[in-house]
């Protein structure tokens, strides 16, 4: 198992040949991406080395789990910040993203560790939380941006429904549904086709590390369910929180939260 997982410094250097292929393509086709490619390759190496050393403390079974949970909290905070960067037009997005990721962490990690699917060790918590946060981030950004766009583009229709005596919840329901579908459908499609087009990361990693493929599949399926559950939770919490902020308690589109008209 260790033989497969340990590629050594030489192996790492040889894999760099593939960067040279990308550089050559950029040079030959005059893409002007050489600098970006080099920076990306070096940054990935340095960042992952730092993360690797930090993870030694976090996943060490002899160290208390507090380091592990601090790591998870950091991931959630960085993810919330990233959502803010990718969806700058969304009002109050950082607190909403923090609540969304926290809710997803409680639900999904609670099921996996609380019901004994995985042992609650640093070695399990960190990668699972990472996959939960990483996969949820994209859906969260898509849902948040879509809700703001729906409120902006369909303001007339929303106010027409309000004027007919609809509650704000009912007036926005079709738009909320559309935003949630847009955020969730890609993940559902990915789950449907998993294994047919590409082998998923966790399973690939386990097989490379020498685990029996069927054992790796069991872990992978649990991970896919974790991802689907956490993507749904983050998207739903973000959507509901954002929608609530768009309206006042007396069923008006909140002037402060009203997206700018195009």
């Amino acid at each position, binding site marked *: 198992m260790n033989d497969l997982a340990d590629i050594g410094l030489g192996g790492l250097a040889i894999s760099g040949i593939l960067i040279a292929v990308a550089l050559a393509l950029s040079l030959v086709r005059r893409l002007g991406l050489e600098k970006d490619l080099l920076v990306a390759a070096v940054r990935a190496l340095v960042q992952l080395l730092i993360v690797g050393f930090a993870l030694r403390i976090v996943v060490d079974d002899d160290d208390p789990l507090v380091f592990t949970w601090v790591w998870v909290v950091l991931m959630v905070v960085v993810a919330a910040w990233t959502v803010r960067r990718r969806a700058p037009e969304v009002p109050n997005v950082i607190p909403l993203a923090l609540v969304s990721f926290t809710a997803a962490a409680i639900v999904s990690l609670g099921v996996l560790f609380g019901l004994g699917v995985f042992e609650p060790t640093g070695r399990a918590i960190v990668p699972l939380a990472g996959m939960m946060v990483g996969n949820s981030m994209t859906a969260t950004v898509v849902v948040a941006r879509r809700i703001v766009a729906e409120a902006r583009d369909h303001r*007339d*229709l929303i*106010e027409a429904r*309000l004027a*007919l005596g*609809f509650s704000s919840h009912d007036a926005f329901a079709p738009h909320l549904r559309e935003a949630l579908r847009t955020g969730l459908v890609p993940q559902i499609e990915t789950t449907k086709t998993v294994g047919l087009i590409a082998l998923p990361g966790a399973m690939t990693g386990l097989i490379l590390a020498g685990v029996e493929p069927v054992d790796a599949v069991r872990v992978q399926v649990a991970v896919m369910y974790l991802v689907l559950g956490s993507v749904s939770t983050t998207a739903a919490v973000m959507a509901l929180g954002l929608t609530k902020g768009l309206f006042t308690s007396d069923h*008006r589109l909140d002037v402060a939260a009203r997206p700018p008209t195009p």
Partner: protein
Amino acid sequence: MRQSLAVTEPGFELKGVRVEGSPRPRLDGIDLCIPADGITVIAGASGSGKSSLLRLLNRLDVADAGSIAWRGVPLAETDVLMHRREVGMVFQRPTVAPGTVLENLRLAAIDLDEEAAADLCSLVNLDPNFLGRSATELSGGEKQRVCLARTIATGPAMILADEPTSSLDPEVTEKIEDLARRLAHPESPMQVGWVWVSHDPGQVGRVADRVVVLSEGKVAAEGSAEELSSHEASDVRRAVGGDR
């Protein structure tokens, strides 16, 4: 010019209503009584605060200062959802929901049967055969008539109409004006009052029982179109078609 009907039933009462805006307040110290019956036209130039006033009456917006009461009860104390069904609104830009005309009408009255829906179509001069058609594919004028029928389907005591005929041709405009007058008539079984925003002086003369002219967020004048046609201020006379 149309003769004014006797308008007596109390409707909206506004006291010191102010809505902030930039560079000047959109509404500035409005004191006004609008009867619940007849047709009250809010006239005035673009940006004078007509639509802002209408949105306040439907409670789509709230005033920054002052108070508004409907039939003696402050709007802040009424159930907003009930109020919006009692005082319906038709917007300047006709907005229909995806789906058929019938489905749009059922947004207002979920149990509306096809016969009643066809009657509503006839009322607003829309072919009842349109009930099965996609509402989003109708022309602007047809959409506006669907919106009007949808608002009438809630059984309102009053309709707030924000330049409802601005996207309609003269022939349909005349039919809608006629419908408003019929619904507002004291002997109509529906007895619907109207607050009708218009910047068309000709229309003001045709439909108004009473006119309120706004200018830069303030009430410049109020009275019948006939009275205001000889008002001392030229913009008031212009708003009611008395100064051409």
